């Protein structure tokens, strides 16, 4: 463990002990996120989650991807998001109970870990999660599926957190899409090119890569100074600079020592050659998206477009 990490760990441990010893009536019952990272999926959000939660003044829930707004507004995702919460939540709870002596248990944390598994998924459920955050922290979560929320979902976010700050991480759309397809295929042991082609043809792929449309629908509700776009290209080239920007955006101090693992990529998918037929489908379908991105972000958009066209 690095010095920064050790310091962080001690701080967290002390904060947890202090919370456990506090008079419960002095603690908040509900709180809602100060910031949310809405995606894109396969565009560095795990890296972002992992690094942000190391910052001593930032607080993220015990589990990445609470999938709260997606649960409410993207019902077709409910089956797998529920299963994901059950599996991850029960694992986290068991680990917490195993690793901590009972006299050190933070029962509020135990309650929230159990809630991740047990629900029911409501505004109060969501608000109780963030009530765990220390009063002087900036709290938020990372759920990449939120980028595809319908307008009612975005309005719901704003209703709970009127001043929410939104982080959106972008990646070359075809690279994002192929990473997504690869992940799905590998999880289900699929190698059949025809199936990969079918994945590539799904509207969902266009939907998730259509960054300009996503940005437009969020920006209808969120002013420019509360909406930050970052690029996977920069995360890879200069991770420290991206984190410094993020800290500035979230109004917390930046120190290199807070992020000892900034240079380590998170969740790198297994390599796999993209079949040329899949590339053709994506190139064909994504062309207008590349054009729109190039207008919005000339520097990144043009470079991305030049790779394929």
């Amino acid at each position, binding site marked *: 463990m690095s010095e920064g990490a050790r310091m962080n760990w001690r701080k967290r441990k002390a904060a947890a002990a202090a919370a456990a010893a506090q008079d419960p009536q002095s603690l908040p*019952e509900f709180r809602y996120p100060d910031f949310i990272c809405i995606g894109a999926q396969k565009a560095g959000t795990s890296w972002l989650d992992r690094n942000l939660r190391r910052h001593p003044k930032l607080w993220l829930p015990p589990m990445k991807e609470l999938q709260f707004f997606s649960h409410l507004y993207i019902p077709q995702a409910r089956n797998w998001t529920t299963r994901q919460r059950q599996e991850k939540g029960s694992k986290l*709870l068991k680990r917490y109970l195993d690793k901590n002596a009972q006299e050190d248990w933070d*029962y509020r944390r*135990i*309650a929230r870990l159990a809630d991740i598994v047990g629900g*029911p998924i409501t505004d109060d459920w969501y608000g109780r999660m963030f009530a765990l955050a220390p009063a002087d922290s900036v709290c938020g979560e990372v759920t990449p599926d939120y980028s595809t929320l319908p307008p009612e979902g975005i309005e719901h976010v704003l209703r709970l957190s009127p001043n929410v700050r939104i982080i959106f991480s972008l990646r070359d759309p075809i690279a994002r899409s192929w990473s997504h397809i690869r992940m799905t295929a590998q999880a289900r042991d699929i190698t059949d090119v025809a199936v990969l082609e079918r994945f590539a043809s799904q509207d969902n792929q266009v939907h998730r890569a259509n960054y300009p449309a996503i940005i437009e629908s969020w920006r209808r509700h969120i002013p420019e100074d509360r909406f930050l776009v970052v690029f996977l290209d920069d995360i890879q080239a200069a991770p420290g600079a991206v984190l410094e920007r993020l800290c500035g955006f979230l109004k917390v101090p930046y120190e290199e020592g807070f992020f000892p693992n900034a240079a380590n990529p998170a969740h790198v998918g297994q390599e796999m050659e993209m079949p040329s037929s899949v590339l053709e489908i994506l190139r064909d379908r994504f062309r207008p998206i590349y054009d729109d991105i190039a207008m919005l972000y000339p520097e990144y958009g043009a470079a991305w477009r030049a790779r394929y066209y």
Partner: protein
Amino acid sequence: MPELPAAASETAEYRYPDFLCVGAQKAGTSWLDKNLRRHPKLWLPPIKEIQYFNDLHVPESRAWTGRHRRDRGAMMMRHYLTKTEAEDWNYRRISVLADIIASPISDRWYGRIFSLAGADQMCGEVSPDYATIPDTGIAHILKLSPGIRIVLSLRDPIARSWSQMRMDIRRGQRKELHELEAGAMNRDLYNRADYPTIIENWRKFIPDDRLHVIFLDDIEATPEAVLESVCGFLGVGSHARLSTKAMNPVHAGEKLEIPPSVLETFKTRYRPIYERFAALYPEIGAAWMARHYG
């Protein structure tokens, strides 16, 4: 990973008690709690005595309410986690129990506890400290549970008070004779024995048919009949599982003779209680009076 019990997201988030046993302390409430929770159509929280309304409306009681919930809750939690295989864990129950122990109390906190009850069950709890909460507390209960049914268990007032003092003696809080004599003058002790006033207060808010009074004398003489009457009152019908436990006293304090001077103090102070009570419940009231005022 086993399936969750029926789509967790569809279960009600909050629910409030259908019934409360509000006391009196030292008058068989532990026995009642233990037996009621054996009934398949009744649901009671993971710990006896949530002590919510007295915590809110009787500020002095905060000296023990939080610790009571923390200690009892931690004991139950340890018990639950060690006695139940992880694959059988009820995560909502774990969450509620952990919140009973450590979270800020509020109406929603209270309502989440009872949301664990089955849809086909009547839910409620036993907190003897509720008997003497002020009107604002009773009104609060009615706001959350407009159709609430109240069970009140009573015991000869002097015997009740002496039982509570014995409990204090065992806990080392009182021991010298002069302390006991002073204790017998205690206002809180008097209020807890002042059943006519307690009943009058609750009746201001609760219609007759939703207030059920039982007596420790009957619990001792015919426990099964008492349980049957309570179940009938709650509208759930008696159940065979109850009768096996009905006979066993719960939390019987150690025997300890009441010092004559303490008894005399009680007899002098409590006389009006006995007289007013006999006017309300002539039969049992006369029997209690006869014991002390011959």
